[in-house]
């Protein structure tokens, strides 16, 4: 059997399990945890479009989460606009911001871009934390915004049980993964990776490196903002420290880096490995050893960067491909 066929087949059980899980796992607590896991996997995969493929280091992505969350929430609370529409508007806003940040900085050293993202994210958080009104919009400062679960239904992205949220984020995650896969095989994907690795050579081959990075940035910021809306509708309460925090930005980046940026499996793998660490250490050590999971993240990150700079996915992906090769070669097995 051909290797590609095998690869597709190997994904089938994963898809089946993913879609069937809520039927088996009834506990809302566990579903909640898994939903957040998917949420982070979505965020890191979106981050990967610009942090992995384009080879730059965005360290302020939480700002886009915040833009998405606040835009849809304010629009729905004050003007009754459907969160789905708010989601799209938030995405567009985030895209504009992402392009504004990227436009001057993509032509410069990578450090400038990283700094600009941090500065913008923190500036944004400081502003939202300290003002109540931005023009006609009520942001409610550090107290944040609460959404009351009154209008239940798909059009309002509001549900009484966890299952619908589960499927929505699962579909979003699947979508973003599919997008990443398509891009990696497209001209944009090739150009991004080339421009990230050897910008001078890429430019001489017709690659407008800065423009490609901008496109990736625009996509990434848009997609990240969508997740912000989801989060708002899921947790029903947003405040600056939860959606625009530097911790969140860093966690997203760290997970993607540890898992392996620039690959498709890396961010998900990172999320699968690290989120449980984060959750467990918060549950068991939250009061005695606060911030323990961040220390662990930091240490793991440094070790990975020294010994496996392409992320933990590398040895695993290699083993996976070797296995596929072995299975594909033997015609006696399977079809």
């Amino acid at each position, binding site marked *: 059997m051909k290797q590609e066929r095998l690869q597709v087949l190997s994904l089938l059980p994963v898809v089946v399990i993913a879609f069937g899980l809520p039927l088996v796992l009834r506990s809302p607590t566990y579903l909640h945890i898994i939903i957040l896991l998917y949420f982070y996997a979505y965020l890191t995969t979106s981050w990967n479009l610009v942090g992995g493929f384009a080879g730059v280091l965005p360290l302020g992505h939480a700002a886009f989460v915040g833009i998405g969350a606040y835009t849809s929430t304010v629009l729905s609370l004050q003007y009754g606009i459907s969160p789905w529409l708010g989601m799209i508007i938030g995405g567009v806003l985030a895209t504009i911001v992402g392009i504004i940040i990227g436009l001057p900085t993509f032509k410069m050293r990578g450090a400038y871009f990283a700094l600009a993202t941090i500065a913008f994210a923190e500036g944004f958080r400081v502003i939202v934390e300290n003002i109540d009104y931005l023009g006609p919009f009520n942001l409610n400062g550090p107290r944040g915004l609460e959404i009351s679960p009154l209008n239940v239904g798909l059009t309002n992205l509001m549900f009484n049980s966890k299952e619908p949220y589960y499927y929505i984020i699962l579909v979003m995650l699947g979508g973003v993964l599919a997008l990443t896969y398509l891009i990696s*095989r497209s001209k944009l994907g090739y*150009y991004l*990776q080339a421009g990230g690795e050897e910008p001078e050579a890429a*430019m*001489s*081959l*017709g690659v407008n490196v800065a423009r490609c990075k901008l496109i990736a940035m625009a996509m990434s910021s848009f997609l990240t903002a969508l997740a912000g809306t989801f989060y708002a509708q899921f947790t029903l309460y947003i405040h600056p420290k939860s959606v625009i925090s530097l911790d969140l930005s860093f966690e997203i980046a760290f997970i993607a880096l540890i898992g392996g940026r620039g690959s498709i499996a890396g961010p998900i793998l990172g999320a699968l490995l690290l989120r449980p660490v984060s959750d467990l250490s918060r549950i068991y050590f939250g009061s005695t050893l606060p911030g323990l999971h961040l220390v662990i993240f930091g240490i793991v990150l440094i070790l990975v960067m020294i010994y496996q700079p392409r992320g933990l996915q590398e040895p695993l992906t290699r083993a996976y491909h070797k296995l596929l090769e072995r299975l594909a070669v033997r015609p006696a097995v399977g079809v």
Partner: protein
Amino acid sequence: MKMLEVRDLVKDFGGLRAVDNLTLALDEGEILGLIGPNGAGKSTAFNCIAGVYQPTTGEIYFKGEKINNERPWNLCKSGLARTFQIVKPFASKTVLYNVVVGSFATTEKKPEAERKALDILHYLHLEDKKDVLARNLTIADRKRLEIARALATEPKLLLLDEVMAGLRPTEVDEMVRIIKDLRDKGVTLFIIEHIMRAIMAVSDRVVVIHFGQKIAEGTPQTVAADERVIKAYLGEEYGVS
């Protein structure tokens, strides 16, 4: 209309004048060699033409159009390609991947880009290494990959920057053969080289640069016999083979 025209090109870096009023031209289908001692300004001139540096003063025309401040990617789209003196392969990617990046300059679709890339690899005898990571290639193969990549963009004018440096004599001969073959395929070539027997064998005309200034121009024989060139660069014992 000349393929490439450089008029009174000057490039200053602070107080240092790297290129000093350089004027030259290439006809279509020509092979022009550029020689001179190290630090004479050859690569700088290339970089000005290729859009990496902005000329301080002077004009550069490509296919009749002024290209002074054009960016490298636009020049590539117009048909100007170049290789780098210190090769810059996409080291973590395969040979095929490297060339496909070049092929995408002429097409939007990956299958077509791959097909074109494979053709080029076949032409340069690199196809059996198509899945090798670029960082694992020998220096000779890396140089060929560099040319393959640039060729994939289907250029009209190709700037080759010391593609023979570090090659063994047999590899140099092979490279000379490839260059002559490229010209037969319709590519105009502008070559910087230090290996005398190669560049003298392959060029239609040669330009000699010293301290950023052109000190001689003509056929390889004329240039080799020029006294100033001998004093500055070639040495007394040199004779064109």
